[in-house]
């Protein structure tokens, strides 16, 4: 009998703790929503006003606001809050809370009654659902405004200097010791013939052979040689070309 009565008290204590947890869950949810609304609003207003800010400051404001809001909302916790929202618990919870030390049949019956009726009590019952929906709509609206504002406003001043700078750095690094561009065969110690500074390579080839008609008239012969002459800028390399040709024949 005594054990049963003690069990009832323990169950009620458990219930009261559970209700307190539910209360905290609701208040954390509400504070989170309030903080979200604040952050989105600040972000949107700053965007419209072209004010740039440090995200760390916004994070600090949000964190501080969340804590203050939570403290404000949770300062007056009592089981009467549940009684107001759940008419079936009217006066039951606080009577049970104030008589936890009692061990008799009527108190035990009260504890059992409280447990039965409180079975359906969850955090939903103390959420001001209408206000919550309003806040959710506000959060949604602010999110959409924030997203759309980035698309429809044409005069977005995008700072691309960083991109150029990065690109130049990349180019500079390629012209250093690890240069891989140009004539890198370097078989015979020749100079690089690639003009790295310009983007246009001017090569002209002038032919001195007979024309097509002349060759038809003369007829093809086996020892006929086609002669070509490089542009005057490349005549200095004639010796080198010849040497290459000879080496190639030797190899063949």
């Amino acid at each position: 009998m005594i054990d049963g009565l003690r069990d009832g008290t323990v169950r009620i204590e458990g219930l009261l703790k559970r209700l307190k947890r539910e209360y905290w869950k609701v208040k954390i949810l509400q504070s989170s929503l309030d903080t979200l609304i604040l952050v989105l609003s600040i972000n949107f207003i700053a965007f419209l006003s072209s004010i740039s800010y440090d995200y760390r400051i916004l994070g600090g404001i949000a964190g501080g606001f969340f804590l203050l809001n939570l403290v404000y909302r949770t300062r007056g916790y009592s089981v009467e809050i549940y009684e107001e929202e759940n008419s079936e618990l009217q006066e039951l919870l606080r009577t049970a809370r104030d008589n936890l030390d009692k061990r008799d049949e009527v108190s035990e019956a009260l504890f059992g009654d409280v447990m039965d009726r409180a079975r359906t009590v969850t955090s939903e019952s103390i959420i001001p659902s209408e206000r919550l929906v309003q806040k959710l709509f506000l959060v949604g609206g602010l999110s959409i405004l924030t997203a759309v504002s980035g698309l429809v406003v044409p005069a977005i001043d995008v700072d691309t200097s960083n991109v150029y700078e990065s690109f130049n750095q990349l180019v500079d690094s390629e012209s250093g010791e690890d240069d891989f561009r140009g004539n890198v065969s370097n078989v015979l110690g020749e100079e690089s013939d690639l003009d790295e500074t310009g983007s246009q390579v001017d090569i002209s080839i002038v032919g001195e052979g007979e024309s097509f008609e002349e060759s038809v008239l003369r007829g093809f012969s086996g020892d006929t040689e086609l002669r070509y002459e490089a542009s005057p800028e490349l005549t200095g390399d004639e010796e080198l070309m010849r040497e290459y040709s000879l080496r190639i024949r030797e190899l063949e």
Partner: protein
Amino acid sequence: MKLSGKGSVKYDKVNEKLAEIKNEVSKVIVGQEDVIDQILTCMLCDGNILLESNPGMGKTKMASTISESIGLDFARIQSTPDLMPSDITGTHIIDDSSGKAEFEFQEGPIFANMVLADEINRATPKTQSALLEAMQEKQVTVGNKSYELERPFFLIATQNPIEQEGTYPLPEAQMDRFMMKIKVDFPEHEEEQDIVKRFTEELNYDPDLNKVISRASLIKLQEFTRQVPIADDILNDVVNIVRATRKKQELDYGASPRASINLVLAAKGHALIENRNHVSQKDVDVMAKPVLRHRIGLSFAAEKKGLTEDDVIKEIVDGV
């Protein structure tokens, strides 16, 4: 002395038993549900009752019917100016049946479980005070010897509000010992028709009443009543209500701490009757008038304004 009605009635059967008692009483008494509830509440709280009504309202019938359905011994005392205390408490008589004359105590009508003192304000103050000890201490003293009254013991006193000539108004000290002052109003039209039919169609209307509970069960019910839990804030409200009577301008004097005790007890009893396992604010509101109305005194200015004790109590209860 601690009495126990252990094993006589289970808590989950309490409401069923109380409903059966009310059902038995309704076989005789038409309507007056509030009055019956208040009398039962007093009985659950082990309190005494002062019934106030005009003559012919069925007070005696109501008391005897309730006592019969609970299986209590019932006694009636008709108070008159020449009623002596010994007529109530009993007296020593010489008994010589054994051949040897000896004084033997002969119990008076007070030695019953339920005593109805009709028109108590017609008895002299000396006789009225003989009831004080029985009401409070549940014992009577005759000569130099005290006799304990059998539990449960209730005193139901009645008085007539309209006929004050030749009466001895109860002193405040004695009024305070009544847990409630219950006013019995005139019945509604349909109720009165039923009363007339019921008591005119038979020569001696006396239906068989079932004894619903035993005396031990009643004592167990009184134990359950004390166990009904009350929230701290409701208890605080009760104290505030009673304390407010002491400061109210319309009142010459307010209620004592005994009124606070009785109001909490009455609220517990009412909760039990209403099948509630805790005291509600409604119980306090309902019980405030019967518990407080005889414990406060209206000032001359309030009486001149036409206020009643109930008006002032309602104002206090609404304000707390």
